[in-house]
């Protein structure tokens, strides 16, 4: 198959899968088989695309012209490839996990769940491969709408309220800020294509560009830059696989990825260097990191703690980009992958604990490590990776972030990263400690979670380890990003 065909296939698979899943709603067995097969097929497709992209090729494909001069078209560049690879790699695990989870917790509307899950992945892939802002925006909205039913899945008043906040924030930011920003760009630059070095250079004066920068930074609400992070904790009402999808596989990653993409391919690093606004954006990212971490400290609910940790970890990516040094941009790109692997492991573990022991609070986890050894081992790996200890994925990305900061003598950045690392440690270590070294409370007679769940979370924990050893591929991709190599 030629590369464009593969690209088309990668885009088509999730949606076709969703359709089939919806049609097979009556036969759960077939449906679940499909739920596993489709992600593997996608993974295979993406893997096939990898070598070409590493070789510097940029397969692209234009579906149709929506409006004069505005096309719905896709093209693979290194950053997008990286994101797509992460999503494709984690989807099978997530599917495996969610099958187990839904069955174990006897959830209703499983068909709707799996179908929407697949569509969300499709949206994520669309975001990853988008060749211009219009396509990106469309895929971004597909992702938003497709995840709504997942968040609202439980359909009780609490879930509905959470889902309302989720949809409200994401839609109002995207319609209210992102769309005008895009139209403004279109009016100013006359094009919406992503181009190395950006398209905005020399179109507007720095003041307006600053405003535009903030329109994008907050318009892409999925990046959860404070204070527009409310939707993320609100979405915690969703079933755990969804949280995993939101935090690791698709949603927030799509957010920071889009942001990176805009910074690199619409503004261009060189332009950002000249913008006074860049410093402000950097400051916001830093603040977001620190504040979110401190909030996370005070959360007793495990999933909420993880959620706030996500908020802070996301801002690492933005921070890395806004250091505006090649190495830290590398770090930012790598951190998308690193955080994805680590965080999905943590959520899988949290879900496993809920499924097996029906525990949701950190304070209940005393000694649970001996009842659920596999789960907690994975959890510990994930947590340590979040903190950034070698030899784990988190270490890799933080290393590059710091390297970039050092290189460009950006001491503020170094300070922020150090402090937040301490904070990460402060809110993760107690959990690990409790799990292994505190005495178990008397009346807990549960065992390990269902096998499909355990398998999934071990797989992702393994990925967290592997990423640190076999980092060539992601590194190469990251280096291929314009401004990503010194």
């Amino acid at each position, binding site marked *: 198959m030629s590369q464009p065909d593969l690209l088309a296939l990668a885009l088509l698979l999730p949606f076709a899968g969703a359709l089939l899943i919806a049609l097979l709603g009556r036969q759960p067995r077939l449906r679940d088989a499909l739920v596993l097969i489709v992600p593997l097929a996608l993974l295979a497709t993406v893997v096939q695309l990898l070598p070409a992209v590493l070789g510097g090729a940029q397969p692209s494909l234009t579906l149709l012209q929506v409006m004069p001069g505005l096309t719905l078209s896709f093209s693979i560049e290194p950053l997008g490839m990286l994101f797509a690879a992460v999503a494709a790699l984690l989807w099978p695990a997530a599917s495996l996990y969610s099958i187990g989870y839904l069955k174990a917790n006897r959830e209703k509307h499983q068909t709707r769940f799996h179908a929407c899950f697949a569509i969300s992945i499709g949206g994520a892939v669309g975001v990853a491969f988008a060749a211009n802002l219009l396509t990106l925006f*469309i895929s971004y909205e597909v992702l938003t709408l497709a995840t709504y039913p997942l968040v609202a899945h439980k359909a009780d008043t609490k*879930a509905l309220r959470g889902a309302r906040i989720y949809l409200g924030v994401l839609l109002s930011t995207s*319609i209210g800020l992102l769309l005008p920003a895009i139209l403004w760009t279109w009016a100013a630059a006359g094009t919406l294509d992503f181009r190395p070095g950006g398209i905005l250079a020399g179109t507007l004066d720095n003041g307006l560009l600053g405003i535009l920068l903030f329109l994008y930074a907050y318009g892409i609400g999925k990046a959860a830059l404070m204070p527009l992070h409310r939707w993320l904790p609100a979405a915690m009402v969703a079933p755990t696989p969804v949280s995993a999808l939101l935090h690791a596989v698709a949603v927030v990653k799509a957010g920071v990825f889009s942001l990176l993409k805009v910074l690199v391919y619409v503004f261009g690093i060189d332009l950002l260097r000249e913008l006074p606004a860049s410093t402000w954006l950097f400051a916001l990212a830093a603040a977001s990191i620190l504040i979110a971490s401190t909030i996370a400290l005070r959360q007793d609910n495990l999933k909420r703690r993880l959620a706030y940790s996500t908020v802070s970890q996301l801002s690492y990516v933005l921070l890395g980009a806004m250091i505006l040094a090649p190495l830290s941009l590398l770090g930012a790109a790598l951190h998308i992958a690193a955080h994805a692997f680590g965080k999905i492991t943590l959520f899988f573990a949290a879900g496993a604990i809920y499924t097996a022991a029906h525990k949701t609070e950190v304070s209940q986890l005393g000694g649970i490590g001996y009842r659920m050894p596999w789960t907690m081992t994975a959890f510990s790996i994930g947590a340590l990776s979040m903190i950034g200890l070698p030899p784990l994925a988190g270490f890799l990305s933080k290393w590059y972030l710091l390297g970039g900061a050092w290189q460009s003598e950006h001491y503020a950045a170094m300070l922020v990263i150090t402090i937040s690392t301490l904070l990460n440690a402060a809110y993760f270590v107690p959990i690990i400690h409790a799990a292994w070294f505190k005495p178990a409370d008397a009346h807990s007679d549960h065992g390990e979670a269902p096998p499909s769940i355990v398998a999934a979370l071990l797989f992702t924990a393994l990925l967290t380890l592997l990423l640190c050893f076999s980092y060539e591929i992601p590194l190469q991709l990251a280096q291929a990003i314009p401004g990503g190599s010194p």
Partner: protein
Amino acid sequence: MTLSDQLPILAVVVPLLASPLCVLIGNRHAAWLIALLAAVGAFAASAGLLLAQLQGAGPVSYALGDWAPPIGIEFRVDHLSALVLLIVSAMAVWVLAYARRSVEAEVAQDKQTGLYAALLLVHAGLAGIVLTGDAFNAFVFLEISSLASYALISMGRDRRALTAAFQYLVMGTLGATFILIGIGFLYMMTGTLNMADLAERLPALSDTRTIQAGFAFISVGIALKLAMFPLHLWLPNAYTYAPSVVSAFLAATATKVAVYLMLRFVFSVFGHDFAIAHMHLDYLLLPLAAIAVLLLSLVAIFQYDLKRMLAYSSVAQVGYMLMGLAIATPLGVTASIVHLFNHALMKGALFLALGAVMWRVGSTHIGQLSGIGQRMPWTMGAFLLGGLSLIGVPLTAGFISKWYLVSAAIAQGWWWLILVIVISSLLAVIYIWRVVETAWFTPSPNGTAGRAEAPLSLLLPTWTLALANLYFGIDTSLSVGMAEAAVGGLFGGAP
């Protein structure tokens, strides 16, 4: 003259004569068949006209009675009229294809023949307004369609349909009379009723108070007809209590044609220089449109009856069209026309979907519809599609409208206007999402579980319209292309 030269008159006369034919035969099944065939015929004719325009035939004049204008009355086909005509006749076909089951359920048997006849009259009247190149003739057709629609609205089952119809009758007649006065003023000063002829003669007279007053009266009259805020009070009840097919057809066509008439008079007859630069129509229109868009979207949120909710949203959406018109740049007017086209698709799909709900549940009150999404997945699927288009989600027709409107506003640098558009879209999200939550995320009341989908004869037209919302969100070559060509004609001067 060959058949292709006769298309303009056929597009009007076929439904116009089919209507008395229905009454003459007086059998309701035959009446439905005749109506459907007539609509299809008219649709074919208007499709032919559109094709001719696409191939660049240029404005076509059809002299009725072979009396050359301005002595006689002429039909005038250009890009704008061809596009709007297509909307009207297409909607007629869809609604009539849908009508039989729905009407059987909602209207007494002995009145069904009359309903089809009246529907045809509305259709013909609107088509006439769109095609005619004669100011007074437009008034006559306006009255045909209005009288017929009063009757249609009054056929709703709720007694409030009657009061709604009467209110509409008073408002509509006042509007028509205002237009009549305006035309009188124009005739007084020019001695002609032909639009093209007027357009030639008016610039010389643009400083006379008579012409200015004429302009004012025509504008107000049309504003009454198109339910422009704050003259919209008649519309919500009318659309709420009319039979479903009637609501669908009127919502999709009537106000659109009124907007067309506004565009026609403002840009073709009076011309941009007079209406905007000299009379500053935009100063009046823009604020009103903005308020309408915000206020009525807000009001829509608090409605319990979904038909009424959509009715209020319709008034708000008309606000968008007027906004584009009031921006009065080629881009703005393009946005207005594109939205005119797209909104017909949205509201058509939405009202037809509600008609199917009415057919099954017997009510469109939101309290009755919990869990309806599981019971009528296809119907509500179509509703959702229409709703997303109404919000302006990408890949739907609504997105295209918003795109052009916002870019027109950006081109003017009117940030407050963009804010208005954004806020109202979010309000649309809210009132559509109320339905989504009720339909899918609240359990069905006990005893009503299990599938209870509407019959195919209702679903098929609904879904074709819903899919049209998708199609014109992806391939805009027809809607946008025609709109841009039409704008070229409008700013070029005479129709």
